[in-house]
């Protein structure tokens, strides 16, 4: 471990409209590079109480957070791996070989000029396009454990919107943070939620005041640079009554010879009549264990929508959920997963109905390429005491090669006779006649496959913002290259 020193500087002066902005470029090959960064803060390898004390001290945390972390570590150590239902590949994670905290500085910079060169270069190489500034309200760029850059447009900040990383959120807005933190996803929710609760760093903290509709999306970009590293960001978004916000996140990591762990916890709270839309396009290198817990709590007439796109990683386990707590609350999960050779996308959705007239919609499409494996797990729960609840679940799987694999485990529990649910599932194999038809028009077999796959997810891809759906198409084209023959 690095010795602690008081290197925290005052926040840089606020400048108007930053000239550059992060982040969308997320092509897998473009993400496959790393810089040899000199880290000022390093918790070393392995996990113990000392690791937690180090992280907590570096962040100068209040005692209650430190206690929260220690409590979480105990739970993590006590909980078994969920291998009784999930893949045994989880046993290949060696928690003693992971580095739990790496950071160059503690304060994110407000302008790109202040961001250290190598880190700035990283985000530039990821294709951080300047024109994107036009449509984002704020950006956070996390490099390993901490945000290197974070900024929110002045106009949005003036509306009272808070958009900072979790460290700053805890320090500067403890009254809001503490009220909601760990309430949607308790520490003991699952082993990886407990792990995150013990060692979390980075991630976004967002508060949107009553009635404020954030005109443009807020965006975060999560970048893993170091080998044997674990990234544990913690995001908490609170949309106060009648407010609206769209949050987008992108993720990449270089491909190392050893496994990397990404285990985030994301909690959303939509108060009465609020709307939150959370969009993810992840494109992890295929050695990343991506084990993420995401859940939202929707109060009366509130709406939470997860749009989730999973490409890359070695194993992804992610089931975004919505707890429909207030009358007429709505929850939605739209998910796309692409599993290529050596990858397992174990994704799905959870919809917990806890009030009358709540509605939920789950649409999931997965594509398995080569020996890739896609698994859908869904959980819909409507108890007997409720009335007027509706759920719609659709899951479609597309298999590209004969050795591709897909599994579907929908668990829909609807009790009582005053609620309605419908469920459709389909598995299809890419039709050879269709491919020949496209080839006859001049497309190569690979191009034909890409087009067929893009067509398969088209109705979902259209729900992504333009820039993301273009990127998504490009990613799929890249993934489909070499999938035939």
């Amino acid at each position: 471990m690095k010795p602690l020193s008081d290197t925290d500087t005052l926040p840089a002066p606020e400048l108007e409209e930053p000239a550059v902005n992060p982040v969308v470029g997320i092509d897998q090959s473009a993400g496959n590079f790393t810089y040899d960064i000199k880290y000022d803060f390093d918790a070393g390898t392995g996990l113990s109480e000392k690791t937690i004390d180090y992280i907590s001290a570096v962040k100068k945390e209040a005692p209650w957070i430190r206690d929260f972390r220690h409590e979480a570590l105990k739970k993590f150590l006590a909980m078994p791996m969920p291998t009784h239902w999930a893949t045994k590949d989880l046993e290949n994670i060696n928690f003693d070989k992971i580095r739990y905290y790496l950071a160059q500085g503690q304060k994110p910079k407000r302008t790109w000029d202040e961001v250290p060169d190598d880190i700035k270069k990283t985000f530039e190489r990821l294709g951080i396009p300047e024109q994107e500034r036009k449509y984002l309200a704020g950006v956070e760029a996390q490099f390993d454990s901490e945000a290197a850059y974070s900024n929110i447009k002045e106009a949005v900040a003036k509306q009272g919107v808070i958009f900072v990383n979790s460290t700053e959120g805890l320090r500067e807005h403890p009254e809001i943070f503490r009220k909601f933190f760990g309430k949607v996803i308790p520490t003991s929710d699952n082993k990886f939620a407990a792990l995150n609760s013990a060692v979390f760093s980075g991630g976004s903290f967002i508060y949107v005041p009553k009635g404020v509709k954030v005109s443009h999306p807020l965006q975060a970009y999560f970048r893993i640079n170091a080998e044997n590293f674990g990234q544990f960001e913690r995001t908490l978004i609170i949309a106060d009554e009648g407010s609206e916000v769209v949050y987008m996140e992108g993720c990449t990591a270089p491909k190392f010879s050893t496994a990397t762990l990404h285990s985030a916890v994301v909690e959303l709270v939509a108060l009465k009549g609020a709307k939150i839309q959370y969009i993810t396009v992840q494109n992890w290198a295929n050695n990343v264990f991506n084990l993420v817990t995401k859940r939202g709590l929707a109060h009366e007439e509130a709406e939470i929508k997860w749009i989730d796109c999973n490409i890359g990683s070695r194993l992804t386990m992610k089931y975004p959920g919505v707890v429909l707590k207030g009358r007429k609350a709505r929850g939605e999960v739209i998910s796309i997963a692409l599993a290529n050779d050596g990858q397992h996308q174990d994704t799905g959705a959870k919809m917990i109905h806890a009030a009358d007239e709540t509605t939920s919609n789950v649409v999931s499409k997965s594509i398995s390429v080569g020996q890739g494996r896609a698994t859908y797990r869904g959980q819909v729960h409507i108890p007997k005491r409720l009335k007027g609840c509706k759920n719609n679940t659709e899951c479609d799987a597309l298999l590209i090669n004969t050795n591709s694999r897909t599994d579907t485990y929908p668990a829909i529990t609807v009790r009582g006779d005053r609620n309605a649910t419908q469920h459709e599932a389909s598995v299809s194999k890419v039709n050879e006649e269709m491919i020949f038809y496209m080839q006859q028009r001049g497309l190569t077999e690979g191009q034909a496959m890409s087009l067929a796959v893009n067509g398969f997810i088209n109705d979902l891809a259209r729900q992504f913002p333009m820039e993301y759906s273009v990127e998504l198409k490009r990613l799929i084209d890249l993934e489909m290259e070499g999938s035939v023959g």
Partner: protein
Amino acid sequence: MSQLEIKDLHVAIGEKAIVKGLTLTIRSGEVHAIMGPNGTGKSTLSKAIAGHPDYTITSGDVLLDGKSILELEADERARAGLFLAFQYPSEIPGVSIANFLRAALQARLAEGEEIDATAYYKRLYAKMDMLKIDRKFTSRSVNDGFSGGEKKRCEILQMAMLEPKFSLMDETDSGLDIDALRIVAEGVNTLRGPNLGVLLITHYQRLLNYIVPDFVHVMYDGRIVKSGGKDLALELEAKGYDWVKKELAAATAA
């Protein structure tokens, strides 16, 4: 001026020989009709020439402008100028006609070249006007939920946009009512010209009332057994295929 030569072509599906020594030459500007009873190998011929992987060419050759195309993949043959209008066109859910055609044209450009979107749509709409196709058509997914007539019109539109040297039209009239048939035939007639050679495969004579061929060939048991001008089609209509069969039997016996 281009030329498609089919030389003593033998085609099998698995072990079964279907086309058994067929020879035919088509030049730009010509429309050849191949007629024949069901199961005689007409569709097999067109799919084999287009490069369908289920069809094995056991001997013979197919040359486009003097060069054999048999070593080429289906998409390479398409880009070389061969178009197959399918009897049963595939549905491609989620891919609009406009995007599909754009991808097909893009595939014909050299690497690094990008299609000019404005010019593309201008050309697409001009072709659609020419073929009297509603512009809304292009935003629909390719053949997805189309009627028989719509599918065939979609084929004609693709042919118009891809401008092949030779078009193999496989049972273009199948499944069409008389109105649809007339519309499709009008489309083919519009595209007919000095730069296009057409091989029209049909079971019925009625299509040839609308698309008048330069040459008519009768196919039976995997070969062409009789060739002639457009009048041959009328003779077939009057006398039926049995006439050809009998003639053939007599010739074989003699």
